[in-house]
């Protein structure tokens, strides 16, 4: 009988302290996420020093809960995997040092995982990956198009040149006076209107898969100021809908174009903004028309979690990737292939 392989994943790159046990890289046995949203809310965003302080308070509890829920002990594990970067450096360091200490105490191999590789591999937890595939990663920190020809091989074909999609959502939410985190509320508002304000689309160069959202954000701010100067009232739902239409259209068109060009077997979406209803609908419809299978994990696996780190870490472990205890947090870590 084949032996099962259990991997511990740890993720502390931003404002969630998370730990998870994943079996054979595809099955979640436990996934614990302790979110700081309530504590960070009053600051209107994530304060890095507070994020780090809260991670220290939660880290061992969260790992313990992941083990308890899985009914496993450390000796059942084959490796400890942890987000190495990118992210907030002080936050990353908590997960990394806990992972190092845990690995040393239990004499387990240690593996540092790229956060975006994690988001991509979240899909491995719901559906087997087939290559080549195209992944669209959209979150508060990222907007990336990645082509994978095999496990552990990443080719970054496009990324944002300024704001991440989720960042633009949060900023527009602030303009509309919505409380943090505003992204999901913009999505909600947008669904309530079918006549969006006409905001620009940033297509960039003809062949580029890169993105830019800062111009759109400025257009929303200008629109609000202009209306206010004229003494007019702005319809928040129309603004949200117009903004969302612009973001979703650019993301969808570029994704479909890349899927065609790279002749992929599947497209997957990941990251916090992949939870956006408008984006899901648009990608689903567009890719259905192309006849390309499209997968997006459930919302709990779109937002930051540790199961995705363990899922990616499992493939790294199988490929023989190992880190030693001098691993550092890498806030600007580039996405590199391990195969």
């Amino acid at each position, binding site marked *: 009988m084949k032996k099962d392989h259990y991997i511990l994943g740890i993720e502390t790159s931003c404002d969630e302290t998370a730990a998870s046990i994943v079996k054979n890289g595809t099955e979640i046995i436990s996934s614990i996420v302790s979110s700081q949203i309530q504590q960070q809310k009053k*600051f209107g965003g994530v304060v890095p020093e*507070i994020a780090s302080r809260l991670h220290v308070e939660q880290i061992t509890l969260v*790992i313990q809960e992941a083990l308890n829920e899985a009914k496993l002990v450390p000796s059942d594990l084959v490796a400890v995997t942890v987000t190495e970067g990118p992210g907030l450096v002080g936050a990353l*360091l908590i997960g990394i040092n806990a992972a190092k200490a845990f690995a040393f105490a239990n004499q387990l191999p240690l593996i540092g995982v790229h956060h975006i590789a994690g988001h991509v591999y979240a899909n491995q937890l719901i559906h087997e990956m087939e290559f080549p595939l195209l992944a669209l990663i959209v979150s508060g920190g990222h907007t990336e198009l990645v082509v994978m020809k095999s496990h552990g091989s990443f080719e970054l074909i496009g990324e944002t040149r300024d704001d991440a999609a989720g960042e633009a959502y949060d900023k527009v939410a602030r303009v509309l006076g919505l409380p943090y985190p505003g992204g999901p509320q913009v999505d909600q508002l947008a669904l309530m209107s079918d006549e969006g304000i006409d905001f620009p689309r940033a297509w960039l160069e003809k062949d580029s898969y890169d993105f830019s959202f800062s111009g759109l954000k400025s257009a929303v701010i200008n629109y609000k100021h202009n209306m206010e100067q004229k003494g007019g009232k702005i319809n928040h739902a129309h603004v949200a809908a117009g903004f969302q239409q612009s973001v979703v259209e650019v993301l969808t068109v570029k994704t479909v174009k890349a899927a065609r060009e790279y002749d992929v077997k599947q497209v997957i979406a990941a990251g916090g903004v992949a939870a956006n209803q408008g984006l899901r609908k648009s990608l689903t419809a567009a890719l259905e028309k192309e006849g390309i299978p499209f997968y997006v994990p459930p919302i709990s696996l779109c937002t930051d979690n540790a199961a995705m780190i363990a899922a990616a870490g499992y493939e790294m472990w199988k490929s023989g990737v190992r880190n*030693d205890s001098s691993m550092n*947090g890498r806030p600007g870590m580039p996405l590199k292939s391990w195969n």
Partner: protein
Amino acid sequence: MIWLGIDTANSPLSVAIVKDDVLLIEESSMMKINHSLRAMPAVEEACRKADITPSEIDAIAVSEGPGSYTGVRIGVTIAKTLAWTLDKPLYGVSSLKALAFNGQLFNGLICSVIDARRSNVYAGVYRAKGTDLVSVLEDQHCPVAQLLEKLKECKEAVLFVGEDVKLYESIIREHLGKQAYIAPFALNVPRASSAILLAQSANQPEIVHTFTPQYKRITEAEANLMKKGSSYE
């Protein structure tokens, strides 16, 4: 009984292993190094040199701050993760008290100082009592001038300990004159063995999961929020 001691509260790094009241190994470095790179390797190296496996460790002492926010968090995270997963008692020791221990033989007050920038310091004032230190002025974050005024009122000889004392040497002399003694460099090294010794005289181990650093200072974001009078929304 095997103790592991860790101090990364400031730029120095110190790791020690004590077995049955014998200091087997202690490695301290005053270089400005990245604790995230060096702390865990130093722990592993000390265990290897002392020929100890992780499960043989019986208790862990860690410097809990105050000091560099990131530095102290790294030491505390390592210590609490080890203590939790090995199921061994954890003891947090004030980084200022551990540093003050270097002046244990001084006849008078011992004031350990860690720079907190902009003429502010973290400081603790202690007096030796046997192998322990008793607190005379609670560990605090304060303007250096305020600390020196309080010490002046004590009218006692004060030994200043810590690498950062040299930043304030002239103002110390100005305020305290002959009352002040400045420790020589050999006494400015935080020693993880001191943390172990002080932990041994502690009554109760920490509750591991909820154990956090002693920052002695709220974050800037919290301070700003309080100034504005709460409620961001």
